[in-house]
């Protein structure tokens, strides 16, 4: 009985961020001695425990005092390796070694084609089409190593990458034609879903794991951007310093630093996001909280301006692409706030703001599609236009049904998990569409 109570008290303490496990041990030892002293003075065990806990002090003020003393603990430091208390960091260190090894491999892989005479200047198409193949298989390998995967999954993954390699290179693309550019842009999307299967281990069917992959992707993007910015500063300083001694680093930068760094950084950023998991708060939902109201206001103002001035959306050749981007951003904002929302939390004003955002985006997009539909037959179906149209439709369907589910949730007729499940189930759609663009479009449009 007493042990249970002490354990429960310990777990309350451990939940406090400012109080680490070593401190909890110290405090528990103190509590035990206090209880022993009180029992010796004649109290029953229960009474002694209650008195001792009261004497220990109110947990909130206690953790505040600890926080004041150990204020650095409130800034959760990412400890990659032995955590406080000397817990074994062997597995973390092994993971770090593997991650760095794979990053080096990716850097080497991107330079290998040069041995076969394919340089970046002369065959930019080759590198553009295959860029994801230099690093994504290694990333998938990292996850397969880390989480394990059944033999069937491994065979499927290998087959997917081989097929991607084949389709990226076997088609007789016209250099820098639309189909080649589209294939180069869409192959990474398709392969990213394949990496997701590796990420899930053998649990791709589990909606929760797919949502984890979505969260991972968001954080990876943010970390990658931060690393890229840091890399930019690094390169800038390097250029200036070497220029002072008369050496121009541009060739080194173009041929070695940029390609190897950009690809290696993907592996390193993935490793960092995996290491931090939930230790450090996810940044993506924080950014969405910030930008959702801004975009909602923007779109409402846009709609208001359109109705007020009577100006419709004028047709432009690249109109669809702009609206694709808009839908993609709105979907991203919606997706990442869904990823961070506690399904059991009550409805709040932020939910309503998201509905406003999604609905206004749908309205704006509908108007754009209307404008385009009228002119598309005259202009003909080019690969770019068909791809943009397809993407628009995909995003539109996703957002429309999401809006319906969200409104149903807000009216209490549907649990929030229905919305989560819709988003995670929709993931393969992006992969399939990207695969279609890579595999079907080039022969369909004659490789132009």
């Amino acid at each position, binding site marked *: 009985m007493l042990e249970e109570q002490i354990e429960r008290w310990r777990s309350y303490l451990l939940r406090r961020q400012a109080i680490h496990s*070593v*401190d909890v*041990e*110290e*405090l528990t*030892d*103190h509590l*035990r*001695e*206090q209880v022993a002293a009180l029992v010796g003075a004649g109290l029953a065990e229960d009474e002694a425990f209650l008195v*001792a806990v009261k*004497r*220990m*002090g109110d947990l909130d*003020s*206690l953790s505040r*005092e*600890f926080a*004041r*003393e*150990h204020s650095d603990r409130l800034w959760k430091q990412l400890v990659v390796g032995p955590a406080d208390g000397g817990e074994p960091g062997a597995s973390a260190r092994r993971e770090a070694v593997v991650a760095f090894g794979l990053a080096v491999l990716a850097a080497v892989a991107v330079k290998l084609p040069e041995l076969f005479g394919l340089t970046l200047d002369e065959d930019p198409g080759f590198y553009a089409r295959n860029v994801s193949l230099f690093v994504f298989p290694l990333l998938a390998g990292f996850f397969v190593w880390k989480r394990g995967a059944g033999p069937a999954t491994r065979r499927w993954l290998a087959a997917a990458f081989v097929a991607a390699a084949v389709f990226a290179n076997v088609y007789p693309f016209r250099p820098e034609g639309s189909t080649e550019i589209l294939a180069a842009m869409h192959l990474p999307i398709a392969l990213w879903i394949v990496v997701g299967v590796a990420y899930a281990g053998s649990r791709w069917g589990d909606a929760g794991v797919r949502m984890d992959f979505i969260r991972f992707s968001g954080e990876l993007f943010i970390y990658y951007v931060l690393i890229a910015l840091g890399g930019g500063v690094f390169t800038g300083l390097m250029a200036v310093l070497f220029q002072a001694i008369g050496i121009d680093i541009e060739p080194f930068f173009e041929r070695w630093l940029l390609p190897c760094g950009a690809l290696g950084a993907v592996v390193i950023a993935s490793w960092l996001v995996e290491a931090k998991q939930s230790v450090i708060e996810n940044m993506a939902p924080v950014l969405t909280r910030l930008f959702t109201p801004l975009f909602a206001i923007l779109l409402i103002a846009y709609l208001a301006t359109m109705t007020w001035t009577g100006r419709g959306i004028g047709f432009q050749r690249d109109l669809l692409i702009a609206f694709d981007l808009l839908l993609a951003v709105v979907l991203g904002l919606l997706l990442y706030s869904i990823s961070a929302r506690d399904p059991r939390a009550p409805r709040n004003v932020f939910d309503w703001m998201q509905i406003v955002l999604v609905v206004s985006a749908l309205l704006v997009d509908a108007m754009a599609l209307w404008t385009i539909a009228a002119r598309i037959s005259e202009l003909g179906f080019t690969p770019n236009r068909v791809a943009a149209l397809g993407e628009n439709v995909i995003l539109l369907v996703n957002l429309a049904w999401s809006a319906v589910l969200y409104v149903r949730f807000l009216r209490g007729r549907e649990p929030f998990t229905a919305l989560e499940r819709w988003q995670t189930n929709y993931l393969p759609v992006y992969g399939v569409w990207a695969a279609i663009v890579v595999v079907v479009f080039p022969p369909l449009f004659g490789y132009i």
Partner: protein
Amino acid sequence: MDINKDLVAASSTPLVLAILADGDSYGYAILKRVRELSRGRMEWTDGMLYPVLHRLERLGYIQAHWEVSESGRRRKYYRITKRGRTQLAEEREQWQAVDATLRGIWSALALPFSAARELLTLTLTPAPALCPCR
């Protein structure tokens, strides 16, 4: 008598350092000693002792090491360092300066009867030795 929080906070450092100067100790024992020394008038909230100990450790006045107690569990013991002894001597000087000033003015003021009795008992009863100068 409830002692002002600021007084308790200010006196915690010299008190803990002095107790540790007497010999190595651990949290619970330090707390017991404080209660003994103040004759029950200073009742610290048990848990609050530990942030104080951690701050003193961070400042380098005390050092911690883990030992196995009689009950078989690990217990964190504290030991005063040289810097701690220097700091203790300094705090002692400061407190004695403040004390001398206050005593001076209190003896000059006309005080109500009960307070005068308190003052008399304090000055006449010998306090337990707290001298760190072994």
